[in-house]
Every structure is written in structure tokens, then in C-alpha cells.
């Protein structure tokens, strides 16, 4: 909130802007927000994110917060999580939610789509083995229904099983009686969500306005 930007960071921002496609103002705003969340420190930890009051109502907050610290989303080829992230990593995660620019080629669109879906996939695939198996899927459904209160765990399990069954039947077709269905792979995931307009659905409007200061009273 009003932290002065030295010439060095200005240059970094420009760099980031080129790489991620955000505009300078947007990066500036995100930076301000970052500083606000991290109490003006250099890095952000899980507790900082967890302390956002608005997130309390969100049933999948744990998964979202994890996603920020997941190495796979940070364009590193490792797995596992980090404890703290810097501004650049924060920005990396945010780029997944950038709206699709106009005039992209087919290939670029496809890449963008894959990237966004990869983010989603990683969110579900908590053990980083490349597939979403039944346990993980169950956890997803349970979390989704956790706010509903009266829905029991059994129902959540049943729903997850039914969904899994559906996916298996559509992606694998008929399987031999003794074949084992390991889980949803990334390719299957793409297939299921084929009809979704990911490029258009999965984005947040990053205004050029500095809304971080506007919401001063409510956030944090």
C-alpha cells in the first residue's frame, strides 16, 4: 500500500509483463496486493493466505491455497510444495487466470487451454503422481459438499464413485473384468472437459484500477 518502487523493481516488472502478458498497471496492482497480504515482507506463506476472511466461506480453500505453493504450478519441473513464495511465483499462479487475448492462433489457444487445465488437474492430484485416483476425487467431492452440512460422507463418496465410473466408462470404454482403473490421467481430464470453454471460463478480470486499496476495510 504505497510502497515505493525502486527503479530495479520497475525493470523487473517490465520483464514480468513481457513474460506473462499482464500490463504494467496490472502487475503493479498485484504487487500491491501481494505486499498487503504478506505484511510487506518479501515472501508469502500459507498462513498469510489462510487469513483472508473472505476465503472462509469457500469450500475448497485448502486446495486453492495449496495450489499457490505447489511447485508444479510454478513452471518448475519438480513436484512437492514450497513453504513460501515470492512475488514472482505469486504472479505465475495468477497468470493461469488471465483472460485469453484476442487473435490467438489455434495452437496458442490449445496451449493456453492445456495450461489452465493443468492447473486444475494439479489442484486435484495432490500426490503428484499424474493421475487423480478415487481417493483424491472423493476428497474433492467431500470438500465441495462440506459446506452443505447435512450431506453425509457416504453420499459424497457415492457421488465421487459415480462420477469416477462415468469417467472410466467414457474414457476407457469396455474394460476387461480384471483390469484395474488407476484413475483419471491428464489426457482423460482434457477429454472430459472438452466441451468446456476453459479459456473463457477460467479467468478473472484483472482491472487496471487499483481495487486493492478500495477494499481496504474488508480484506485483511
Amino acid at each position, binding site marked *: 500500500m504505497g510502497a515505493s518502487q525502486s527503479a530495479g523493481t520497475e525493470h523487473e516488472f517490465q520483464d514480468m509483463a513481457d513474460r506473462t502478458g499482464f500490463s504494467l498497471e496490472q502487475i503493479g496492482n498485484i504487487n500491491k496486493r501481494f505486499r498487503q497480504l504478506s505484511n510487506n515482507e518479501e515472501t508469502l506463506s500459507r498462513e498469510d493466505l489462510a487469513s483472508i476472511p473472505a476465503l472462509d466461506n469457500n469450500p*475448497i480453500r485448502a486446495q*486453492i491455497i495449496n495450489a499457490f505453493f505447489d511447485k508444479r504450478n510454478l513452471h518448475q519441473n519438480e513436484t512437492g510444495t514450497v513453504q513460501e513464495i515470492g512475488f514472482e511465483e505469486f504472479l505465475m499462479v495468477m497468470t493461469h487466470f488471465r483472460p485469453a487475448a484476442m487473435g490467438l492462433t489455434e495452437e496458442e489457444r490449445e496451449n493456453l487451454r492445456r495450461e489452465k487445465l493443468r492447473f486444475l488437474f494439479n489442484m486435484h492430484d495432490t500426490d503428484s503422481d499424474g493421475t487423480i485416483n478415487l481417493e483424491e476425487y472423493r476428497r474433492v467431492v467431500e470438500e*465441495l459438499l462440506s459446506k452443505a452440512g447435512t450431506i453425509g460422507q457416504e453420499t459424497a463418496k457415492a457421488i465421487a464413485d459415480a462420477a469416477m465410473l*462415468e469417467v472410466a466408462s467414457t474414457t476407457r470404454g469396455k*474394460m476387461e473384468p480384471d483390469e484395474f482403473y488407476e484413475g483419471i490421467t491428464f489426457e482423460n481430464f482434457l477429454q472430459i472437459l472438452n466441451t468446456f470453454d476453459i479459456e473463457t471460463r477460467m479467468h478473472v478480470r484483472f482491472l487496471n484500477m487499483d481495487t486493492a486499496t478500495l477494499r481496504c476495510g474488508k480484506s485483511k
Partner: protein
Amino acid sequence: MACRTCLWLLGTAFFTCTVRLVVEGTEVGAPQGSHPEPGVVGSNHSQAGGGHGSSISGIQIVTFKWHHVEAPYLIALWILVAGVSKMVVELNHSLTSVIPESALLILIGWILGGIIYGAGKMQTFTLTPTVFFFYLLPQVILDAGYFMPNKLFFSNMGAILVYAVIGTCWNAATVGLGLWGCWLGGAMGDIDIGLLQFLLFGSLIAAVDPVAVIAVFEEVHVNEVLFIMVFGESLLNDGVTVVLFNVFDAFVSLGGAEIDAVEIIKGIISFFVVAFGGSLVGIIFALLISLLTRCTKNIQIIEPGFIFILGYLSYLTAEMLSLSAILSIVFCGICCQKYINANMDECSVTTVRYVMKVFANGSETIIFVFLGISAIDPAIWVWNTGFILLTLLFIFVFRFIGVFLLTWILNKYRLVPLEFIDQVVMSYGGLRGAVAYGLVAMLDENKFKEKNLMVSTTLIVVYFTVMLQGITMKPLVTWLKVKRAAVTELTLAEKIQNRTFDHMLVAIEDISGQIGHNYMRDKWHNFEERWLCWLLMKPSARKSRDYIFNIFHQLNLKDAMSYVKEGERRGSLAFVRNETKADVDFNKKFRASFSEIMPDIMADNMGPDHVPLSSILQDIVPSVCLDMHEQDLEMRESEDFNAHHLLQQHLYRGRKQHRHRYSRSHLETNKDENEVQEIFQRTMRSRLESFKSAKMGVAPAKKIQTKHQKKDKPQKMPNGNSTDKSKNHPYGDKDLEFSEGDCGSGGEAAGDLFPMRAYGVEAGIVNPAFMAEMDPMDNMQQMQQIPHVALLPQTLNSFDP
């Protein structure tokens, strides 16, 4: 078949005409078919008393009391004619896939109008504004509001409002001014008209019509965003149309000189009042409906009625207060749908949905047929080439320009820009319809000297848009490769992902500190859940509202229903209503059929709980045992089965018809025990007869039917031989269905008696029928020793439902 219905349709029309002619002939001094007053019926029904003026000399056994029933009779007759027209239209599917239904209905209207005109030399049945606006339009709009996809509607609300308000104003202004300019330039010849009248005409012809849009777009399944844009615009532009119409009407009455800035400002203010006031009235009525349905638990049978009455009242109230009636009823439908669907009983919800559709479709049909009929009236036709052609040109061209302009502006602010192709379709889909005709028919002839010209032009515009644009819409959409609506329903996985998306987007917005679309939606959602649902929903409905759970519930219901359908297809005999859960076979059955799809999810990942999926299904169908897999295959082969089934149906059904407990509030199926018993006794008697005759060697048993004792033989039949020949019908209460059909052959009868006993006794009886190489005769000899008569009381007891 086609000829018959056509003949019937023509016959009805002829009947109507002849009736009228006859009536006019017998009326004493009644004025001939006057100008259409309020009501579809053009004739005078105030003459009711006059017809009976002739002297009565004695008691008349039968009298022809036409006047007595004239008004309702004609109305009912016309509704029938409209319905039959729709039937005729739908006869040929290849035709309806090319030409939209609405166009064909107008065509039929022309034919009917021609017949009526030819019969009476005047058009007595026309679409009058009163009937249209009060009796035909509300249902269509209520239907539109009730079935509106709210989420889609509100997320595109900004764009819809821009098109509806600014777009309609633009259309009205440009068409009006364009025509005026051309008139000044002399393109229209000499007509008594002025600028204000042109503007008024522009405003009523500018509005996109909801009825026409529904009718045409229904058959062309474009993607939902495009549809909601055009559709939403057609609904919301009523606010503008009403205001413009009233304002210019007032201006015309005032005369050009009185218009000054004050009046114009008043006009602008009236727009806001009319639009927001109308919506507010609708929302208030929606609240009323929701609150009402909260308390109607004890009168579920008339619950649906409230929706319609209150919806209609919202329309009339807004009309009374000179606000926008269409906006009122639309918002009433939009706002109340969620709460009434949650509060009301499922039967009531189904009723509301179906009745709503019946009314809306019926109204639409009548509207289009009468749009056709109203045209066949030389009295109203004034031809002015310039006026008509220029109007057509202007509405078409200016619509395109308007849409493209507005979209270009909107795309700067939209997250998902509207593509070029979509814009083209949106412009082309700006259809005018009955609302424009209704408005123009309301004009005062004294103020508007050229009313007939305007009416003619409006009719031609309507025909052009509905018929020509309607016919070419589908090819255009296909040619331009417009994105179509998704045909298949979302899978469960996709729905779950949908949910995840929403939550994720909200979370990201929270984290990044942006106030975005999702944030707003989330806030509204929270507010709604805390306050509105508490106020408007029944406590029991509040609990089971979760989205995913509802999906699950629907899926379960669907599964259960397809399960039952499958069972009935193979012969309902397979179902047993068992008091105790028959879980043993169930598991196996389930494993067998589903193992292809889900091999080891069941086995390996379960851990402590053993066969979860079957447990799910057990919850769905608790006490139904589905032992149908193996035996049904054999059942199909046997012809006796068919005879059996046939007999069962005939015999049973006949009796069912008789017992009707008449009640206005309860719809019950017949569960009469006595009936069941009686049938059983009859069949038992007849079986004894046939059994005796078979014993004498009269009729050799065709096959043996034995009952499969579940507890004894959980797996398949012990030997292949008897399996082929035997039918296995494990069941309890429905014994009698089983037994009825067996009157045919004695051998079967023998077999049947036996299992009943076995079932009743519940001991581990080895069914002699199961023994290998069974000779029917042997079987029967054994049967003789069985005191079958004594069995009756015992098995009868098991029939108690």
C-alpha cells in the same frame, strides 16, 4: 391420416361459418356482424333475449339455443381449430424441419380466413388487441420467465439491457426518421401523416417480439449465449416500447406545438418509472407466490393454481398502473422459480411445468393462426409501395447497423466478446411479431388517418420476418457455422468441475483482491442463502438444496426408473417385493454386469467397506430383487411366456378399470385386496379344472414351470435341463399374475401350484420339478397328492400389501 385431419379442420371451419350464417338468418332484426368488439367473436351476443322473441305455442322438446352458448362455444371452437391446425402442421416432420411451425400456422390462418371471408363476405374473427394483450400474451411471457435460465440471464444482463434499451431506441428513431425523410422526399406519395406519427410507427415496429423469437429459435438450436441475448432483449424491450408508444401517442394527441423540453424530460423519466416499476411489481408478486407456496402444504392439489393466478395478477396490476406488464410478469416468473420449485411437492411442480407449457404453446398457436386470419380482410388493406418497402428495408438495415455498433462498444467491456457470426445471427434474428400488430391495432383511427396503412405494413413486416427470416434462419445458421447448443447433458464429472470452477474463481478473486463478477455473484449467493431462503422457503426444502446433492438425487431417480423400465421390458414378473432385503444375489448380479466397467475399484480401493457401489444401489432400490438376469434370457424364448403375459394384462386390467374411488383431491392407484383375492380364486378354480383334464391325458404339458427357491439356490439352476424348460419367477405378492396365465396348459398349472407351496412353507424343499429328466406326467402324479386347496389360505396371507 393427413387427409382426414385436413378434412376435419376444414369441416370445423365450415361448421363455424354455417353456424354463423344460420344464426344470422334466424335472428330477428339483429345488426349484422359488426366491427369486432372485445372478443374473438365478432357477432353480437347481447341479442340473447331477442332470438326467443317468436311465440311459443307448446312445449318444445328440443330447442336450438344458439345464443345461449354462442360466446363460449365459439371461443372453444376456435381453440379447437387452432389445436387441430397445429396437429396438421406437425403431421409432416420433413416439412416442419424446413419451415418453422409459426410460418405454417400463419399459412393455415390464411386458408381459414379465406374460407370464412368467402362464406360471409366479411372478416368477423380477427385478433383484437384486448384479447391478445389480456388473454393470449400473458401465458407466453409467464412461461418464458418461469423457464428462464437465471444464471445465464443475469450474467449477460448488462449486454441484454444495452440491446433492449439503446438498441430499441435506436431502431425506433432511425426507422421513424428514415421514413419521415423519405416521405418528405416524396417517395410515398400523398399520405396524411406527420413526423410524430412516423416516430410512433417506428417505435412500435422496432421492438423485437418474444413470441416470434421463441417460435423461430426453438427449432434452431444456437448456443445459449446468443439465444439469451436475443431472447432477453425481446423480453426487456417491452419497457422501452410501452414508454415510446405512450409518449408518442400523447404527443400526437397534444399536437406538435405543445412539445417542449419539459415533456421530453417527462418522457425520459417515465421510461425509468415504467421499467423499474414494472419489474418491482413483478418481484413483489414473486415474493407473494413464494410465501404462499410455503404454506400450502395442506392444499397441494390446488397449489399450481396459485402460480398462474398470481402471475396473471402481476401482469394486470402492472397494466393497471400503466407500467410495463411484460416486464412485471417476466420478473415474477424469474424470481419465483427457484423458491416454488423448492417449496412445492414434486407432483405440483410437474403440474405447473406442464400446464405452463400447454398454455404457452396453445396461446402461441392461436396467436399465429389469428395473425393469418386477420390478414384476410380487404377492409384494412391499403397498399403504398413506398411506405411498405421502405419500412422493410429500414428495419432490416438499421437492425444490422444497430447491433454491430452496440456489440463493438460492448466487446470492450465483456469478458467473452461476441463473435462476428453471432452478431450476424443476432441482427437477423430480430423478428417482429404479434406485439407490434397488437399495438398498431390499438391506434385511434381519428388521430391516425393512415391507420390502415400502418396495419397493412405491420402485417407485411410480421409475415416477412416470421416467414421469410424464419425459414432462412436454419440454413443461415448452418451455413455460417454458428456454435450450436450442447445437445447432451453434462456428465456428473463435468458438473462437479463446474462447481469447482466457480469456487476457484471466487477464491482467486478474493486472494487477488479484485472485485469481480464472481465476487458479486458470491456475495449475492450468500445473502440469498442467509435471508431469502430463510424467508421464502419451507424449512424442509432448505435442507436439501445443495446443487451437487440435487444432481445426485436426479441421477438416482433416473437410474431407478431405467431399472424399472428394463425390468418391465423383460417381463415384470421378475420383480419380487420382498420384505427382507435380498442382498445375496443382488451383489452377484451387480458384479456380473458392471465388472466390465469397473473392475477393481470395488475390490481394491475399498478397505474396510466391502462393496460400496452395490450398497449405493441398494439404497436406491431397497427391497427389489432383480434376479432377472439369467432367467429372462430363457423367458424370451418361451412362447408360453407371451401368452401368459397377455393373459395377465387382459385379465388384470379389466378389473382395475372398475374400481375408481372418485375424489377431487387424491389420485390413487387401485390396491384393492378383494379384487386380488377374487382373481386368485377364479384362476385357482380354472386351474383345477384344466389340471383334471390334463390328468386324463387331454393336453400334454408343454413345459414345466417351476419356481426358483431363492434361499435354496442362490446360483443358477442345478442342471441345465430344467433350466431350459423352466421359468423361474421368484416373487411373493404377485403370485396371482403368475398363476393367471397358466390357465392354458395343465402342466404349467401343476408346476405353479408347487412353487407356491414351497414359497409359503419356507422350508428347504427340494422341488421335485427340479429333478433331472422330469416327466410331466410324473410331476402331475405327484401333484395330486398335494392338498392344494389347503394351500390357499396360507398363500393368500402373503398377498397382503
